[in-house]
């Protein structure tokens, strides 16, 4: 499809790209906008590695076409927090050393951030249920749950 201008808000900044509207949000984030913290894991919406927050909802960016992003707000890990002003989840993930390779981490953080936006003090069962679609092969699940609990304590 021919490139078309698409306006949206990216990490609270008005953004415009001119791309084929069928290209995925993940592809455009990484390859057009140079934001590399969102990771490709499957391209099928099955693993959660590419999770971003789209208008308050955690979604897989690997199967979100750009046309569906027009006019909406996208938050990626780059917009979650900084070393100077970290999101409580980032502080907690560091304190709990809640990763090994880190491939799933960006998606886990974004999924958990969307959950805490909805419910600042979720019970553990809700944390696990929210993260159910985020796969991890290194086996840091328990550390992640501890970190999310710590972030909302």
């Amino acid at each position, binding site marked *: 499809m021919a490139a078309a201008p698409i306006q949206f808000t990216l990490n609270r900044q008005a953004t415009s790209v001119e791309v084929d509207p069928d290209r995925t949000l993940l592809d455009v984030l990484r390859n057009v906008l140079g934001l590399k913290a969102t990771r490709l894991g499957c391209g099928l919406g099955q693993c959660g590695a590419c999770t971003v927050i789209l208008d308050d909802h955690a979604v897989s960016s690997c199967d979100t076409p750009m046309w569906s992003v027009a006019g909406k707000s996208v938050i990626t890990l780059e917009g979650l927090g900084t070393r100077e002003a970290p999101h409580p989840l980032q502080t907690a993930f560091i304190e709990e050393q809640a990763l090994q390779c880190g491939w799933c981490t960006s998606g886990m953080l974004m999924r958990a951030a969307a959950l805490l936006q909805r419910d600042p003090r979720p019970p553990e069962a809700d944390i696990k249920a929210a993260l159910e679609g985020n796969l991890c092969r290194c*086996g840091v699940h328990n550390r992640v749950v501890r970190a999310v609990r710590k972030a909302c304590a």
Partner: protein
Amino acid sequence: MTLPPIPEHLRKHPRLGQWLDIGPDGRIRAHSGKVDIGQGISHALRLLVAEELQLAPAEIHMVSPTTAASPDEAVTSGSLSIQHSGAALRYAAAHLREACRSRYAATCKVPRESVLLENGTFFVEGGRCPAVYSGLVDTAMLDAEVEPRHLAPRDGRPSAFGAMGRTDIESKVFGEFEYIHDLELPGMCHGAVFRPRILQADVDEAAWARLEPELAAIEGVVEVVRDGMLVGVLAEAEHVLSQAGRKVEQANLWRGTAPGPAPHRLAAWLKSQPLDTTVILDREAQAPHAGATRVFRAEYGRAWLQHGSIGLCCAIARWSGAQLHVWSHTQGIFNLRRDLALAFGLPADAVTVRHAEGAGCYGHNGADDVAFDAAWIARRANGRPVRLQWTRQQEMANSPMGCAMAVGIEATVDAAGRVVAWKQEVWSQGHGTRPGRGDAPALLGAWQTAQPAPVTIAVNQPPATGGGSDRNAVPPYAIARVQVLNHRVLAMPQRVSALRSLGAHVNVLAAESTMDEIARSLGRDPLEYRLAQLQDERARDVLHRVARLAGWGTHGDEEGFGRGIGYARYKNTGAWCAVVADLVIEEEVRLRKLSIAADLGLVVHPDGARNQIEGGAIQAASWTLREAADIGPQGIRSDDWESYPVFSFADVPEVEVSLIDRPDMPSLGAGECSAGPTAAAIANAIHDALGVRLRFMPFTADALMAAAQGD
């Protein structure tokens, strides 16, 4: 402390400067050939160098490994990095510290004994005449051979910087970390390689004649390449390649089959193939035993397992004339360099392999193969760097699998209830098709070009270095007569290679299920029964520790509850590990808790070690309860997370890890020791809950049902 023998890797690379030197910024640089594969090894290595140098860890720059400058430490595998690289670096750092102390004493004309060292600064009483490492080191010092005598006894001192967290975790959490997938080289373009899902196939030339112009017509495609079975596409942008992928999929290009066994006939299939049998151990009883009373015989096994990293294999390659430069997340930069040189007919020094971190790696994945793919197609890129990343489906269909295995045990018990004879037989393909070890390149793509290299048949390492399918096939118990046979299966319809813990996952399941079965049939407590036949004090200690941790002896009375124990010393030479599994049987096995005790000698980074042990146990629990590759005549069918489900948050049990720190003992690797004991503890807990014994993994809901019905 008795000093261990000089580490093998220090003997190979004896010069101090091969391990440590000073960077242009004046910081100490540490060179290791071991790579970060998600386990955080460079952090542990940094901590131990910092400890020996009495310097803040942040002052040590861990140089990213490259064949251009790093010591050749073969492959980052086998839980050996802390044992090999760690030991070598510790000796090197102790030598550097003491050489600088002597240099300082000579320069300042003070007695050596009066030289003090704090935070990387040498000084004498009163703080006079301070000097730092960079001011004391010179070329002659770095050219000297490392003398092991400089390493001081620890006298029970634990790791000095053990509490410090991994610094890469911070950069990963803030999204700053650059994985290989994130590198952008000037002029870089993107490549894809398409291939059949079996090792050898014919190409339907009519289908190819239709496909080629279709691929070339895609906007953004720069080049379409065909070489034997391989189809390559070069494009200006990554997203163009998915269009190409869809066209290739529809073209139905490859013809051929690679028949393997039906899932329920795995053990019979393994035994019916050509076999290469070796005797691993044949220990005759010193004295005849008094009256064998019972013989316990059973067979255990598992299906083929898939690697299943969450990330995708990726490489970047660039040719400059006849020089090849490759960025790779390989476990063995030198091994990959060697086989790339073989594959492209180059001298080894024409190839440079630079390590860049990828996603978690749990054995031989596709990192080496994708590096070949990138280098192969980059030959058509006119000197531009080419980034090549497999898709999820390619990742699942092309990565080497962990071997299917069958393990038979025959244990003879005497009138006193002691095991007096043990025979263990293993049927499995070899657990290694890694590059860098043979006369021909062991790289998937090199087997599939128009001038293919011969397919490397999977082999095992020698038993002395840990074995492969025979890993942990020798039982740890004090048994008079032991015979262990390894039957290496010489057929390889689908590619197999090393997966975390190799044969230990099944061998420990088999041995520890057998011990459990004997104990229960004799009315003995499984823990007590093991302790009565284990002479190794460190083995006994981890069993006692795990029993305390889990509250062994108290038992839940919930319906369907079961508890089981498993123990092994990894490779019989590495870390000691015992696991207690608590679970509940519902429609399927629900794991509640894994309690784990481990003895890793001197623990360098306790949280990192716990993370490895816990992660290893969770991954092994997923293999044990959930995983089996689905393979058809055209290759692997389970090519995504729906067809190959792994443990998710709902499945993961609570895990508690307790380490027995032994500062005066050599450090041992942590990554693989929990796999076998976890599988065994789960099997034994299922028996405790149901009274039936599952012997062939995965222990799915269907397997439970079949066992309960006595199939």
